[in-house]
């Protein structure tokens, strides 16, 4: 029942071009800046790889029976694609689009300004991708990026508690009985994760 932290940083699902895309995309979604590390530095690419290689990527607890029809926005996800398939098809489609539009450059080869333009186009559904709806792809990419930045480090992201330190979340602590009534007093205990204080730098 106890969690098993990821032991090494070997990618299981993404290919090299996909890693390049994800690294570049998450660097724009949550950039490194004066406030601290961004998503790439926090290990979000590796986090997403692990998720897609596992039960989330395979949509194991989703209802994936057909028929598959295009629903209203209120009816939610109706694709036949699992999350893992959606990433594969989506990344290919985006790189194809970029190479057609930006002088044979893949997304990872673009400058930050153009990368942001592409991401905004995907977010709004203004870019036509072959094989996957752009909006759906962007939505899952942002969801997983946010998760990877803020989940416990045992899942491969939030390296060195980058996400938690950015916002001031002290980690999964179990007891604030005394502190909860100390109004206005900052909480100054060191950040911890499920595996303890040095969680994200521990090996194995």
């Amino acid at each position: 029942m106890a969690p098993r932290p990821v032991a090494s940083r070997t990618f299981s699902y993404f290919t090299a071009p996909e890693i390049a895309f994800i690294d570049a995309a998450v660097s724009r979604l949550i950039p490194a800046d004066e406030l601290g590390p961004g998503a790439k530095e926090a290990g979000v690419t590796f986090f997403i790889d692990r998720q897609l290689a596992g039960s989330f990527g395979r949509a194991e607890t989703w209802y994936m029976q057909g028929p598959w029809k295009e629903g209203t926005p209120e009816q939610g996800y109706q694709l036949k694609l699992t999350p893992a398939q959606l990433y594969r098809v989506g990344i290919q489609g985006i790189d194809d689009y970029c190479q057609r539009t930006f002088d044979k450059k893949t997304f990872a080869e673009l400058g930050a300004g153009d990368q942001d333009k592409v991401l905004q186009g995907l977010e709004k559904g203004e870019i036509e991708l072959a094989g996957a709806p752009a909006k759906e792809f962007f939505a899952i990419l942002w969801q997983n990026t946010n998760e990877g930045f803020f989940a416990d480090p045992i899942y491969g992201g939030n390296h060195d508690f980058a996400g938690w330190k950015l916002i001031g979340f002290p980690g999964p602590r179990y007891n604030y009985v005394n502190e909860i009534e100390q109004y206005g007093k900052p909480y100054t205990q060191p950040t911890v994760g499920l595996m303890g204080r040095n969680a994200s730098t521990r090996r194995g």
Partner: protein
Amino acid sequence: MATKLKSVDVVLVGFGWTASILAKELTDAGLQVLAIERGKFRDTVPDFATTHIQDELRYAARGGLFEDLARETLTFRNSLDQEALPMRHLGSFNPASGVGGAGIHWNGQTWRFLPTDFTIRSHTEARYGKNFIPVDMTIQDWGVTYDDLEPYYDKFEYLCGISGQAGNVQGKIQTGGNPFEGPRARGYPLPPLKRSYATVLFDKAAKDVGLKSFPCAAANTSQPYKNPYGVQMGQCTYCGFCEWFACGNYSKSSPQTTILPALLPKDNFSYRTLCDVTRVNLDSTGKRATGVTYVDVQGREFEQPAELVILCAFAQHNAHLLLLSGIGEPYNPKTNEGVTGRNYAYQITSSVDVFLDEDVNPFMGAGALGQAIDEFNGDNFDHGPLGFIGGGYIALWTTGGRPILQQHGAPEGTPKWGGGWKKSMHENYLKSVSVATHGSVMSYRDSYLDLDPTYRDVYGNPLLRLTFDFHDNEYKMSKFETDKAALIAKAMKPRSVKVNYREGHYSILPYETTHNTGGAAMGSDPKTSVVNRYLQSWDVSNVFVMGSSVFPQNHGYNPTGTVGALAYWAADAIKTKYLKNPGPLVQA
């Protein structure tokens, strides 16, 4: 060919809150009771260990305690002219799977409905006239009154160790409680939870705008507590991982922490897990249940005979089973005839995000640590000039500050990602709270449950189909409530607020509440209800239905308090009336 098993006195479908209550009460009465649960066994030790339960990705983002939709889901559409499509992953609501049900992963917000809620149709007609109720609004009186249920609300509250401040004890209004609540015989078993900073700020702001706020009643124990079954609970430590997580501290009320230690050792109680009930079996007359059919983890089919069948599955699952089993005429929205599946309802919520200029440590909290006002709930206010029915409480809850999913929004104009978003998270996380409205949803001709024509579960049974949207009445009411919430929010003197009105159609994502109700409505008239005032099926007198399935409409409070009270009320009726004289308890 199903293998037929030895008969039991009572079979319970599901093993969550209502099954645990019924099992304890009926085994105490000497009956042999079997609970059949589709999910697995779970308990505080070892499954909810404090060392690993606060894992937001595993439990909140990936739904570690929730239903597996690959096995069964429902289909959804807003209106009859659409085709319903499967809810392919969880969004709007999070039902559970496993022993303890949603009673393990709820927040613990525990309320009583108002006296006028139980007689909403007759009360509304008397005060505002028959024409005040829209023609397609199918609200009805419950068939029980608040006074009928008061001793059973008390019983559930003392089972759980609810931490709260009573507002009305035997007709005397109590300082610091909810002055609008119905009268209760005695106060809560435990005092309110400690106040977080944000709830103190809300309380002051509410007072400044002339509203009477009070601490919300919590199924998170403010002190160690031994309940009437002799089960010992701990004291909440404000860890901020209540909703969607299980409590490893014995301080959130659940079947595990309040009933199972007293129930499981009993010789006349047994349970089976990883078994899916697929049918309630009826005899050739169709008026008597002979038991249930279920499929076990290996895929083997069994017939479990029983004298009494009680449906204790989550909300809409009970309606699904009734439809699959042919109990009650299925509701037809076009003709307005039939009963099984009618009057599905939900909750309409909205919020005002508040960006303060001081740290409020949102990560310290508890599931039901909140401060609320009730002036605009039920018929506590004059609806005449407003032109809508219903209402809700307005509260500031400090349930936690979990970083993935409890980001409490961002000020107006904040980018949705990138450097600007990151800066906003850095500047606002410690200083953000929300004032939430929690509104009623009435019943309507076109809000209902039936069987889907296309999609099936793993057993080949048709999925349940949900047809539901919000109506003008609810949008109007919600706007009124949201404006009141904004009033209080602004009186907290924040840097800024962001008002999130409820707009657009009801959507199957994102998450709203797990307050699904209806489909097996209770009432006095078999033409508009599936069960009578004792939760007994009108059609099959040895079948009872529990849970929010029986709500004829949903009122402006979280449902679990009323679910628990009704379970005790029904248990009492079975013990003192039904067992002495099996058969219909109410003449149709």
